[in-house]
């Protein structure tokens, strides 16, 4: 075979692979969207579920997922950003630095269901939070931590060293330099990371199953120690365990669509933000 034809053949195959991957995304989103759009309405979003979830809306599930996201924000953003600052600016190549990196790297690879076991053991049983919003939220926060740290680290270390040197040369202390001259430039990147990790946490299901998600509630959780509904678990439950699987199919699709829109929306915001920020700062 001619070398040129061979090249053409291989390259067409590679292009085919790339198209296949994007097609997979379109097919997936397309099917969920067409299946769910019919049942989706304002009432569906704002009503309580009725008759064992076979009628009514998914309002408590939406609120539950929203609360979970709030807990993840409140817990893992400060810890994640502080860790990232430490790792970039303070870590002195000691055994401690190596230990930190090792821990974060391995934490990122722990399967989600194992985080569920952790949440069950620590938050539900040991700390006595019970099967509750706070147990699930804290479990998700730990899960989101590695991603948050990785994204913030990248954003902070992308700020050129000359910025720091200029600040030091003017007599600023280390923290003044970080606070006034490093963080402001790293902020858009950090925000992107925050949005991505919170959206990841919002779609997580397995840890919730062990830490207190409820099948159906006619009310909203009234405290952090109350049980709750969540969108991803609702999709799972309705699709596999509910009493009449076929009859509730439209509800399953519509719930999946709501979750998908939430996560995709957050991802899009993050991607656009990162793009704009990259165009703005070209060091």
């Amino acid at each position, binding site marked *: 075979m001619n*070398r040129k034809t*061979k*090249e053409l053949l291989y*390259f067409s195959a*590679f292009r*085919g*692979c*790339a198209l296949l*991957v994007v097609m*997979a*995304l379109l097919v*997936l989103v397309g*099917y*969920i969207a067409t*299946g769910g759009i019919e049942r989706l309405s304002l009432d569906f979003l704002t009503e309580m579920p009725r008759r064992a979830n076979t009628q009514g809306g998914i309002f408590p599930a939406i609120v539950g997922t929203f609360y979970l996201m709030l807990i993840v924000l409140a817990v893992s953003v*400060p*810890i994640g950003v*502080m*860790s990232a*600052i430490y*790792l970039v600016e303070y870590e*002195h190549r000691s055994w401690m630095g190596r230990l930190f990196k090792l*821990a974060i790297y*391995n*934490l*990122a*690879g*722990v*399967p*989600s*269901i*194992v985080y*569920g*076991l*952790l949440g069950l*053991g620590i938050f539900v*049983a040991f700390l006595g939070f019970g099967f509750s919003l706070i147990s699930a939220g804290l479990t998700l926060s730990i899960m989101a*931590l590695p991603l948050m740290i990785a994204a913030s680290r990248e954003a902070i*270390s992308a700020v050129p*060293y000359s910025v720091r040197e200029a600040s030091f040369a003017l007599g600023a*202390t*280390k*923290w003044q330099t970080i606070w006034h001259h490093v963080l402001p430039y790293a902020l858009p990147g950090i925000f992107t990371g925050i949005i991505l990790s919170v*959206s*990841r946490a919002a*779609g*997580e*299901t*397995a840890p919730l199953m062990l830490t207190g998600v409820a099948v159906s509630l006619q009310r909203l959780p009234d405290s952090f120690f109350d049980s709750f509904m969540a969108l*991803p678990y609702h*999709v*799972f439950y309705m*699709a596999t365990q509910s009493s009449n699987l076929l009859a509730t*199919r439209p509800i399953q699709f519509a719930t*999946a669509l709501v979750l*998908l829109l939430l*996560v*995709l929306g957050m*991802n899009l915001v993050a*991607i656009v933000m990162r793009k704009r920020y990259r165009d703005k700062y070209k060091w």
Partner: protein
Amino acid sequence: MRPKSKTDGGKVRPRLRRNPHLTPREKVIELMLTIATWSSVVALAAVFAELMLGAVPAFFSINIIDFFTGTVWNPSHPLYPVYGILPLFLGTLMVSFGAALIAIPIGLGCTIWLAELASPRVKSIFKPAIEILAGIPSVIFGFFALVILSEWIAAVFDPVNKLNALNGAIMLAVMMIPIMVTVAEDAMNAVPNSLREASLALGATRWETVRHVILPSALSGIVAAIVLGFGRAIGETMTVLMATGNAPVITSDFLHSVQTMTAAIAIDFGEVEYGSVHYHVLFLVGLVLFIITFIINFLAEWVTRRYREESA
């Protein structure tokens, strides 16, 4: 005296020595940041400790050799529950290897196209698309497999069970590809341009350059990408739970239902009694899973470090 420096993105970055004249405020801040960073170590230690605490009682109530060599997983039997991890372990391996078989060629092709061939404009559409694919929650993949993909497979293959290992493997492959592509593309982009130019100048076609110059130079990065994707597949819960039919049997037939370790933990915890033998055995399964993913991560890290050293 100039202290040690570390390289960062090719640039040498001077390292400041610990300043002995820090104000109390600065000291407090540094301390707080250190404590925050320790929380990751604590979290990882807590995962391990919790799994151990949960699993250790199982050692006293079941025969541990039977657990690792048992070919039957039937924990819900009212009189004689049997805890053999092999069906779950092999189920996990089968689905993950199946997924890797599908994902590796497609992912590699996609990576080569993105890294070497695509124009910047096309790339600026494809790369976010792949990122979005990575961000889709696993329960959505599971739902798709359960409701739609299983129908397609049923229409083509006439499977033994409607929800089967193939269903899960295909869906996991779709989830693996974005991770593989992201990591492998980094590795291919790290290959210096001078190598490409030298190869092209010697008269090689672009394909020959990719095949004989770029792929070998990026090999360890690509291997790391595959290992990471595989690790993700092994730990994935919701997709396999919804797609593979949850039958803990040992089979080599991809059209048969299987159950993975992750799915067993997730589904059994719904009915398990707190502190029972079954409860502790599930923690033991979790411990096995944790150790497997720990080893896989270690491998990926080791390979990545080697390739960093090679390219440095």
